[in-house]
């Protein structure tokens, strides 16, 4: 238990340092809130346009789809605030040889890289996503119970772990490819799957994105928990697959790290 608290303390120190750095550029904070918000509005506008032509998509009504999209946004924004900024810096660290400074520190390198940065702007957008979820639930006349809300919170953490696993695996490619900036584009491209209703997918697509890369579960399972209540099977499947994905990604990172050669003299 002691190592866990040690890492938690380290993370809090890193967060405090990163927050101080972020708050030095207040205007930047507001600008990025608007930018991220515009992408969320884009997704909601898309839902609105499609539902002008149909009443239901794969059994999901318009407000249900909004719960799904907003849940996806919530997970995405928390991930963008806490873990993503550090991970996307890895290609640059490897290319410039600055990873040396991370490796010299007495803490796991994966942990240090993942938690070194913080973006405060996305947290404001995460709050907006929660408000949208609440409004959509009101439209559906659903008042979730406290256990449902707590379970929703736990599943959001599982969603974060899935995002983390995929991006960690993608940025670890940088140990093999010199310029791996495209992986970020890959991350955004692949995560479009998370916004799809699970019932819309069929065949190999559904199997692959449920068991191998559980993207169809990331936002679907938390949203379904709020909408339809506790469903043990899908929840256990989600927890199992996201943990497996995280373990594989961590292993891939370690294999890549062995290839690292400092770029400096």
């Amino acid at each position, binding site marked *: 238990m002691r190592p866990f608290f040690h890492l938690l303390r380290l993370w809090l120190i890193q967060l405090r340092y990163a927050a101080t750095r972020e708050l030095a550029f207040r205007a930047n904070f507001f600008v990025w809130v608007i930018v991220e918000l515009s992408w969320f509005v884009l997704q909601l506008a898309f839902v609105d346009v499609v539902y002008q032509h149909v009443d239901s998509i794969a059994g999901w009504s318009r407000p249900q789809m909004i719960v799904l999209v907003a849940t996806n946004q919530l997970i995405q924004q928390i991930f963008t605030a806490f873990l993503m900024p550090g991970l996307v810096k890895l290609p640059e660290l490897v290319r410039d040889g600055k990873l040396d400074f991370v490796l010299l520190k007495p803490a796991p390198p994966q942990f240090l890289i993942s938690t070194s940065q913080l973006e405060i702007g996305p947290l404001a957008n995460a709050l907006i996503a929660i408000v949208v979820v609440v409004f959509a639930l009101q439209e559906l006349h659903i008042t979730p119970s406290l256990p449902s809300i707590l379970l929703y919170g736990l599943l959001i953490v599982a969603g974060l772990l899935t995002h983390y696993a995929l991006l960690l695996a993608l940025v670890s490619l940088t140990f093999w490819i010199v*310029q791996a900036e495209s992986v970020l584009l890959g991350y955004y491209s692949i995560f479009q799957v998370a916004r799809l209703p699970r019932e819309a997918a069929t065949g190999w697509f559904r199997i692959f994105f449920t068991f191998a890369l559980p993207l169809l579960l990331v936002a679907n399972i938390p949203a379904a928990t709020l909408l339809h209540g506790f469903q043990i099977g899908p929840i256990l499947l989600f927890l199992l697959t996201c943990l497996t994905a995280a373990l594989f990604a961590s292993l891939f990172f370690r294999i890549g790290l062995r290839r690292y050669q400092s770029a400096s003299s």
Partner: protein
Amino acid sequence: MITSLTALPTVFSIGLQRQLAYRWNYLLRALFSAMPLLVSWVFWSAVFQGKETVGPYTLASLLTYYAVLLVVESVSSPADDDFQISREIREGTLNSILLRPLPYGLYRGALFLSGRCAYLVAALIPLALSFFLLSRVIPLQLGSLDLARGIPALLGSALLQFSLTLCLSLTSFWLLDISALIFLVYSLEFLAGGHVFPLDLLPPTLFQFAQLLPFAYEYWFPAATLCGSISHSAWLFGISMQSGWALFFILLAHFLWQAGLRKYTAAGG
């Protein structure tokens, strides 16, 4: 001026070599570019369940639109030209370019062209493969593309996107970090440009309004023209709007460049 134009093929060649130096990065980018088509197929198949048409589209014609959109994006969308220009201004590497007897816009234009050519080559196989696989499930209507009217619209889109990118990048003379501005415009391009859905799925008033903005002529107009879903009079209107917006952004870029240079301070060796 004529002498400086003869340097353009060399700039193009250097740009091409620079792009190919990071071919894995390009290949990854091209591979991931097919992903939105796959997602569109799954999503729209569910939307069309029990329905023959949605707006003016059948499932096959809508997926053809998304497939053509990928080609339009490959040919006409700048990759990271905006960030490159911004870095040149911010870090002062613009100094060495200013000393050359070559207009900056043309220099960047040649690099933009080389980037598009390299990307198109890298994207060719993943795109062809995804079209082939998708056409086994849905009869894509790629055989009947309107190339005579589509290619001018495609080239116009490349010119429009390049000139808009140039304008955004040149704000680096005044702004420390332009990434927020760029991502904000990206989101507008995606929504109002017909990247997320074809613009003719919008309610009529919004559709008419979208056609007044430049974004519609970046993606929707060339893609819809290639798909053959635009009447001749609408095409003439579109090509005029596209040229007009491109000219506007070229003039704006010229003005920003002149004003920016007056503010620019070259420091360091």
